């Protein structure tokens, strides 16, 4: 049985069949550098929570979804933002988020 734990930075794409996924990934930066502490949260088209991962030391995050409209919430100490994205099945969508 696999758990539901979120992997820091998101699960690796290695050994994942991308054709069945709509992947949303990216990097959260603070100022000119990647944020090292924080979280990326995914909301559905109605603003409901879907998933959340702690970002990696390089500010990275990754989600696996189905095609559609999603919102990525970036949360770091003292700042946050929301970015709307459109995911496509079989594609990896890169979303870079800059917070000051």
């Amino acid at each position, binding site marked *: *049985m*696999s*758990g*539901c*734990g*979120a*992997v*820091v930075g*998101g*699960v690796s794409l290695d050994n*994942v*069949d991308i054709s*069945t*996924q709509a992947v949303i990934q990216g990097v959260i930066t603070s100022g000119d550098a990647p944020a090292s*502490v*924080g*979280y990326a*949260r*995914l909301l*559905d088209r*109605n603003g*409901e*929570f*879907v*998933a*959340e*991962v*702690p970002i990696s030391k390089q500010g990275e995050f*990754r*989600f*696996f*979804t*189905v095609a559609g409209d999603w919102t990525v*919430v970036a*949360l*770091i*100490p003292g700042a*946050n933002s929301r970015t709307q994205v459109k995911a496509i099945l079989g594609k990896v969508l890169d979303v870079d988020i800059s917070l000051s």
Partner: protein
Amino acid sequence: MSNQALVDAEWALSHLDDAKVVFIEVDEDTEAYAANHIKNAIALNWKTDLQDPIRRDFVNKEQFEALLSAKGVSNDDTVVLYGGNNNWFAAYAFWYFKLYGHGDVRLLDGGRKKWELDGRELVSDVPSRAATKYVAKDQDRSIRAFREDVLKAIGTQNLVDVRSPDEYAGRLLAPAHLPQEAARIGGHIPTAANIPWSKAANEDGSFKSIDELKALYEGAGVDLNKDTIAYCRIGERSAHSWFVLHELLGVKNVSNYDGSWTEYGSLVGVPVAVGDEPGTA
């Protein structure tokens, strides 16, 4: 929020060096704990410490006693649990400690996320605690539901599916931080209401106010005078909702179905509903 079962950061800070208060970080893997953790906290691994290594079940009473004895936890210690994933696994461990009858167990509001976002201190030193002789009680079955209980509850008692709306409807097979590759079917147990766990939490992972939590369940049309069974995918998000209902709102006739959708969605011959509506019995 004032509640015996829930402590805030200020309470935690004033008890970090209290030998009778044991802070325990609970995660699915202990990579986060290994990097840093709250001062004097020890770690429990949700999978390797709390799950049977062969069968899909908990460790038994004797194994739980051996685990806590080796970790240096005494029966009269105050156990304060916290962790990542918005306290999912810490809430699961809270329910687990209650299941085996630990006297004083609490949850740190907001868990590791709020602690980090508030910029509070995390350390890498691992404390050593002398071994104890921990004695557990028999499992309290009143707070744990099995599939037979769930099947009997369809159309008669409350079933609360706490997964995201897309998982409930069958559009997603797992939380979106995991690949969508599960082999089992999607959907939910017929007549289950969808009250996502996340509606009980603020963005920083802390719990919403008691009034907001009451309004959440009342607004969803759940009659809390009936027995209630909460479930999710593997029982940890529903442990979070169980904590809200049982510990924060004081609803006693609520149990957690830890088999959850991973079990139910693989059963042969049981009814399943798909889409956004609860469906019929």
